[in-house]
């Protein structure tokens, strides 16, 4: 792999024309399959996730997008195939150490209900016996980054609002300054206004951090707003991947067109989310 490489290798062998400048591949999924009983969740999947970019996995329910994320962090074991993280197979060496290089946020945040927001965020740092002063500084930094009020740090999760809850989940994921953020529908359970604000904030955070982000969503608006690369999945296979403009201008099949259009706009209001991104 050269520094200049294709963002995504498709399982049909086609290389997407658009090239992205990046440091290399964060994840490489090689010929991955996974089934749950009779249900084939992922089939012969090849996928490369570029470093330093935001990749969005999108697709209808049951397309395997959450399973793929779960396999990347080792929660789900693939039936076949290899997953490379920073060029090392996940199955080699201590998985726990690799997980400490990843930050993972799920839809309902998965905050531990018996621990305060602060303890949730610092749990891992304390377990690894990091310097308390550095941890305190880091938590302050994260509060600033995620616009989380420091006064609320000593509340338990049940006392937080939905938006605050997900901010804490994000802070927890970022605490150890991981190489990659894995977000599984992080905004899926929030009401539209908070969701809208958080989308804006997330974009700012992703830009300021310059981290590799892999996000799962089923909202095409959110995907196009946040993602550098969109990977559209269906029935455990990649249908098309690339920049949002590629998927709109150059759809590989009818499903891509239908999926991109399956978003209603409110009459008379401009669709901010679907505007072309100013820096592209």
């Amino acid at each position, binding site marked *: 792999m050269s520094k200049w490489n294709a963002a995504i290798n498709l399982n049909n062998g086609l290389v997407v024309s658009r090239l992205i400048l990046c440091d290399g591949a964060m994840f490489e999924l090689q010929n991955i399959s996974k089934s749950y009983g009779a249900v084939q969740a992922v089939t012969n999947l090849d996928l490369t996730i570029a470093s330093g970019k935001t990749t969005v996995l999108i697709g209808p329910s049951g397309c395997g997008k959450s399973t793929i994320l779960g396999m990347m*962090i080792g929660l789900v074991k693939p039936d076949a195939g290899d997953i490379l993280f920073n060029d090392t197979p996940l199955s080699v060496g201590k998985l726990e*150490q690799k997980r400490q290089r*990843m930050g993972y946020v799920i839809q309902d945040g998965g*905050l531990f209900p018996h621990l305060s927001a602060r303890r949730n965020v610092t749990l*891992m740092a304390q377990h690894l016996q990091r310097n308390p002063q550095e941890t305190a500084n880091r938590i302050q930094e994260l509060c600033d980054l995620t616009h989380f009020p420091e006064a609320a740090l000593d509340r*338990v*999760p049940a006392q937080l609002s939905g938006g605050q809850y997900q901010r804490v989940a994000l802070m927890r994921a970022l605490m150890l300054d991981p190489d990659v953020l894995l977000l599984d529908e992080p905004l899926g359970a929030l009401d539209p206004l908070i969701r809208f604000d958080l989308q804006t904030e997330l974009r700012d955070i992703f830009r300021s951090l310059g981290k590799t982000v892999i996000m799962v969503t089923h909202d095409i608006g959110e995907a196009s707003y946040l993602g550098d690369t969109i990977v559209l999945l269906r029935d455990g296979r990649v249908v098309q991947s690339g920049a949002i403009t590629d998927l709109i201008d150059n759809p590989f099949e009818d499903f891509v067109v239908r999926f991109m259009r399956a978003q209603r706009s409110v009459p008379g209001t401009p669709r901010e989310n679907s505007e072309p991104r100013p820096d592209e």
Partner: protein
Amino acid sequence: MTRYLSVIALLLTSVLSSSLAYGQGPSITIGSKSFTESVILGEILAGLAKNTGSSVNHRKQLGGTRILWNALLRGEIDAYPEYTGTIAREILANQKITSRDSMIDALSAKGISMSAPLGFNNTYALAVTAPTAKRHSLKTISDLKRFKDLKLGFSNEFMDRGDGWPALKRRYGLPQSDVRGLDHDLAYRGLKSGDIDVIDVYTTDAEIPYYGLTLLNDDQQHFPRYDAVILYRSALKITAPATSEAFEGLAGRLNVTTMARLNAAVKLNRQSESTVAAEFLKTTLNITTHAVPETALQRIYARTVEHLFLVGISLFTAIFVAIPLGILAARRRRTGQIILSIAGILQTIPGLALLVFMIPLLGIGSEPAIAALFLYSLLPIIRNTHTGITGIDPSLQNSAIALGLPPTARLRLIELPLATPSIMAGIKTSAVINIGTATLGALIGAGGYGQPILTGIRLDNIGLILEGAIPAALMALIAQFGFEWIERRLAPNGRAEVQT
């Protein structure tokens, strides 16, 4: 938890210090069977031993012949009152006992000495109420042959023993088939209420005149003599010679009327065994025992300490064994099923049976009771630990794994705290069951609240039964509220509920 620990520690110290607080002189443990006469005789032996300067512990109403005899052989008790008929037919049943001398030889081969007869023959007899006797003109046991439908109620010991019901039935050719085994003290009440027609009695029973019972003449001399004697460990002649001499000095001093009178004083006049024994020692042997009768409060306090000891030790050890087992069960499905099944089977064994199973392994007293209570306490804690951990929301489990926490840290930081309400509920259940079951411990000499309950049943004394039952119920309630309080303390935000 620390507070809980300190309560246990306090208990242990108080129990230990009270057991060490006895004075000098040889230490003698007297045993008695679970009927009034035996307890009175036990108190008399205790008074005699105390008078010779020994420090004495009387383990009252320990149980039947087997339990007392084995306890004597093992040295758990040093002496107890027994009857020659029982020795010949039960204890030495498989040896040829033809005379008093051969009995003494057979006993001394086992390191046991037998005193000369105390002076009364308390043999078995069959009794009916006066109206029954009149209606059927019953005079002898042979007369029973004519009344096939009479309902017989015999003490469990009489049902089983060599010269008991089966042998009696054969000897006289008795046709009755409706035979029930029941507690001897309940038999009188059954007879009075008409539920049963014929019971076995001891000839010195206080109830015979009280209920106006007619004794049926043993016209074929089936029942052997049951002369009261003292069995004691031969070693006492060396370690406590004054005491063994005092035991021998009781020979011939107790005739059948005196014994029946002492029985009646306890059973019918509601005097305590120790008072009755002290009066006997004073009037017959001119021995003054400075036994101060315990007040009700002192008794309740002593029983509370014993009960807490049984419950505390067994529950505490069960917690330390059951929580790891519960964790193991949650981790490994197959092993978990085996663990839960075994604990479940233990739970189905009746309390009394489990206690009796423990006797051959651990003897009598608090050890077998604690072991049995320990086994009983396991299941609720194992099951609730298992449920508490497996019931944790999978997304929380995944979050903990995804953070990169190793399994032991996950257990300590996430799983155990989240399972705490469930585990505490299990401990609470165990504690309450344990407090109730521990009352059975008195049956094997472990003391506790079961002691006054047993005595109360034996003496038909509701007050005494309540003296054990009410504190036991209160202790269960306190345990319930106490554990709920600890539970709230462990989950200060009340947020530790498992989200499902």
